[in-house]
Every structure is written in C-alpha cells, then in structure tokens.
C-alpha cells in the first residue's frame, strides 16, 4: 500500500471525508480540517498525532501548512457550518 493510501485509510477510519471544493479532509463531528498539502508534507505518525489531539470545543481546528489568518478562519467556519 502506498503512503498516500495509508493516510487516506487513517483519515477515513477516523471519520474524515474529502471535500473537493476545499481540497481538504473534513470531520464535522470533531470539527477538524486537514489540507491536502499538509497531508502530503507530513508522515502518518504526525497525522495520527494531530487526529488524536484534543479538539477546541465548538471551534474548528485548521491543520494547514501555513497559519491561516483569523479572517480566513472565520469565513471558512461559516462555509463549513452552512
């Protein structure tokens, strides 16, 4: 199995699904979103650690390579909650 497929399985098992519009994997229950670029650049152990990390209550956790500005986080939150 390729590393990408391992990551895909890991995410699916943890309840994430792919959102083509955002090019990201999203879990609405835990309110976490991983960008595909982040997933490409980090290994499975790091991704597992991020999946298991405690969530911030009702706030979305954005796991991207670059830190997102607050204004972008606010807009993304609106779209994800719509």
């Amino acid at each position, binding site marked *: 199995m*390729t590393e*990408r*497929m391992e*990551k*895909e399985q890991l995410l699916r098992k943890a309840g994430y699904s*792919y*959102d*083509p*519009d*955002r*090019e*990201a994997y999203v879990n609405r229950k835990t309110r976490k979103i991983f960008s*595909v670029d982040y*997933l*490409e650049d980090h290994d499975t152990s790091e991704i597992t650690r991020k999946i298991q990390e405690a969530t911030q209550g009702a706030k979305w956790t*954005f796991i*991207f390579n*670059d830190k*997102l*500005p607050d*204004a*972008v*986080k606010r*807009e*993304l939150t609106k*779209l994800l909650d719509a």
Partner: protein
Amino acid sequence: MPERTPEDRLREEYFDLLPEIQRVAENLEAEIRCNILPISRRLHRFEQVVVKSRVKECNSAVDSLRRRQKGGIFLPHRPQAYTLLDLKDLAGARVLAFPRALLTDLHEVLRHQFSRWDRDPFQGDPLEKVGYKYSGFLDKVSNRVRGEFQIVSMLVGLFWDVEHSTIYKPTPELRGVEQSLPMRDRTQEVLSSLAAFEEEFETFRNEVRKKTKKKRKA
C-alpha cells in the same frame, strides 16, 4: 441591491481582459509553431508534434484563483484584493510530442526563444519527468496578461484532455477531486504507465533502426 462578491468583480474583470487573453493565446501559439518549424519539418512518419492553444474559461479562472488563496476562499470584505492577472495561465499553449524523445529537442528550442520566461515545473514533478512548463509575458502583445506554455508527451497531454473534458468540465463541483490522496496516486500510476509504454516503444524503435542500418551496410 445585494453587495457584489469578489467572484462578481472577477467575472467582470475576465470579460474586460478577454480580447487581450485571446491575443496572447494566438500569438503564443504562432511563435511556438514558427520556432519549432525546423523540428516539425523533419519528423519521421510515426513522429508527431501538435501545438494547441486555449483561453482559460471564466469560471475556471475564478475557481483557480480562489484555490490559490489561503484556505481556498475569497474574503468578501476585500474584493479589490483579487485579480485574475495573478494567474499565469489565462492564455496557454501546449506542445504535444510523440515519441517522448522529441521533448528534449522541443524544449531546447523553446527555452532559448523564451529565455526570459519563468521555468515552472508541474506540481509534484520537480525533476520535469512529465514535461516542461514556462510562463511569462509576450512583450509586444501584453504586459498584463501572462501566457503559459507546456511541452509534454502526447500520451500524457491526451490523457489530461480526456480527464478534464469527461470529469471536470461537465461537473465543476468535482474540480478538486484530482487532488484527493487516492486520485493523486492513481494519476501517478497512469503517468508512469504511459512513460513505460513510451520507453518500450523507444527500445523497439532503436532496435529496428540498428537492424535497418546493418542491412543497408550489407
């Protein structure tokens, strides 16, 4: 009246720019065709070089710009911050060649002709195994709209055409599917298979050439 969104402004910008984009695409294609004439004139019967140009469609341009923003979104309160002129491929040309060995000759000619353009490898292909990509301005045509040209194997280019026209064009909501982890893997497999097919073809072709030369000498 509802406030205009960044997308509304970008669509308006697109139609303002359209004549200029068309001119860049036409001129780029003509310049490429003209410069590769010494190669296209001496092709063997089985060899092919095709040059195609295209103007990026409006929705595709807006969507493409959106995906390049942090978080993949436009912020509604700063619509003037976005411009389609940031895109490198509003006007594009693709040089398709078969067999793959022709790519090197074509690249050699075009990289000298477009020496001031930015060399910009395809995403995930830093060693330029898939092909070559350049972007820049055609000085006499436009100093605002950039052009982009690609030199790729004909098999790869046709695969991209089919992929694009059968999946993404009729169903824009599926744009982005190609970036999912399994699709990236599958696409990589297709590209590797096409490369292997062409390598095998080259091996046979070289063997046949050697045999023909031997026969002639005898």
